């Protein structure tokens, strides 16, 4: 092996692509796609939509940072995280569509549902910047909370009775662990940074915290899908432990805000969203709605 070309020694196998593009494999290769016996397909489809929408909507939010992050390297990191989440969303929405059996694929589910049909938690949709809705600190706090919650959820979902959900969770968990690590690193840097960065982190925590409570509310679909779904109420102590550790290192204190109200007992999981959601969906779906049936 010679090293005339700097990348020669890095390439795994015969591949015409530039380094590292090799050796990937599908997370769902060889996984049985039949709905397991005793599982209600409608509930399973609804659950996959919940998980998929969490990832899709936060991915859309993070993509808004493209070219607007504080540093070039951070710009790439946020885009990377957004792409991980989009990948999770694609697998989960595809699963939701095939279990539902109504002929909707991932694109139909992403682009042809209205706001009220989205099932994401409201934490993923609120505007945390860039722009007047927040700043880098707000985005980091949201990402920290979201990924800590998702790590707890996905680590349990690896044992889901639905083999597809289990495989998606196994793949996604590695990504989410990185997202959590990245957010925690920044939370400590900013919280324990300058006076100004600490002030912004405190404001960010205040902004995000009213949406934390909803993450641990058990939805009827989750309650019915024992063995397939995770009861989010079970995740609270693990997530609290992680956040406490990060907050201590970051010299931040957790607020005790009034949780954002439900509307007649309903919230994101029921399609009842904040006012930010309609704008997000409109922007995301504009092209598909303008050119229905277009292929790209």
């Amino acid at each position: 092996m010679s090293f005339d070309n700097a990348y020669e020694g890095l390439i795994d196998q015969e591949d015409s692509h530039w380094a590292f593009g090799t050796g990937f494999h599908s997370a769902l290769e060889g996984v049985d796609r039949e709905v397991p016996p005793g599982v209600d397909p409608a509930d399973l489809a609804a659950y996959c939509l919940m998980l998929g929408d969490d990832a899709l909507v936060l991915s859309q939010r993070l993509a808004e940072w493209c070219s607007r992050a504080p540093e070039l390297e951070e710009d790439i990191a946020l885009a990377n995280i957004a792409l991980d989440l989009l990948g999770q969303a694609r697998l989960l929405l595809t699963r939701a569509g095939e279990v539902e059996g109504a002929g909707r694929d991932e694109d139909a589910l992403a682009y042809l549902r209205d706001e009220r049909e989205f099932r994401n938690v409201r934490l993923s949709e609120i505007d945390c910047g860039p722009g007047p809705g927040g700043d880098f600190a707000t985005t980091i706090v949201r990402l920290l909370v979201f990924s800590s919650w998702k790590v707890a959820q996905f680590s349990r979902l690896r044992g889901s009775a639905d083999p597809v959900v289990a495989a998606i969770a196994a793949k996604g968990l590695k990504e989410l662990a990185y997202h959590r690590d990245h957010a925690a690193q920044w939370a400590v840097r900013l919280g324990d940074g300058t006076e100004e960065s600490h002030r912004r982190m405190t404001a960010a925590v205040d902004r995000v915290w009213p949406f934390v409570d909803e993450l641990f509310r058990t939805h009827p679909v989750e309650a019915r899908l024992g063995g397939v779904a995770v009861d989010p109420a079970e995740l609270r102590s693990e997530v609290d432990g992680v956040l406490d550790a990060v907050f201590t290192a970051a010299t931040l204190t957790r607020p005790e805000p009034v949780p954002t109200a439900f509307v007649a007992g309903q919230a994101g999981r029921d399609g009842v969203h904040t006012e930010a959601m309609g704008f997000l969906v409109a922007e995301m779906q504009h092209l598909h709605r303008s050119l229905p049936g277009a292929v790209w």
Partner: protein
Amino acid sequence: MSASWPLWEVFVRGKRGLNHVHVGSLHAPDAEMALRNARDVYTRRNEGVSIWVVPAEAITASSPDEKDPFFEPSGDKVYRHPTFYAIPDDVPHL
């Protein structure tokens, strides 16, 4: 680029690579963040690769001006090179 984000040089070893190879540089506030940035920029997180980051200021380079006195003395002395042996076929990477 702000002065507080210094330059780091990045070396990566592939899953089956033998050596760490210099792949480029980036800016980061410290070594931990440099590692994470290097992962995003240079490895796409393919498992099993190893990354080294080094602050650029820690590297001492040979000077192009000294190229001749530095390297040329060995150029015409063939006896400096152990090339008079047959290399067995089953010894790779020599």
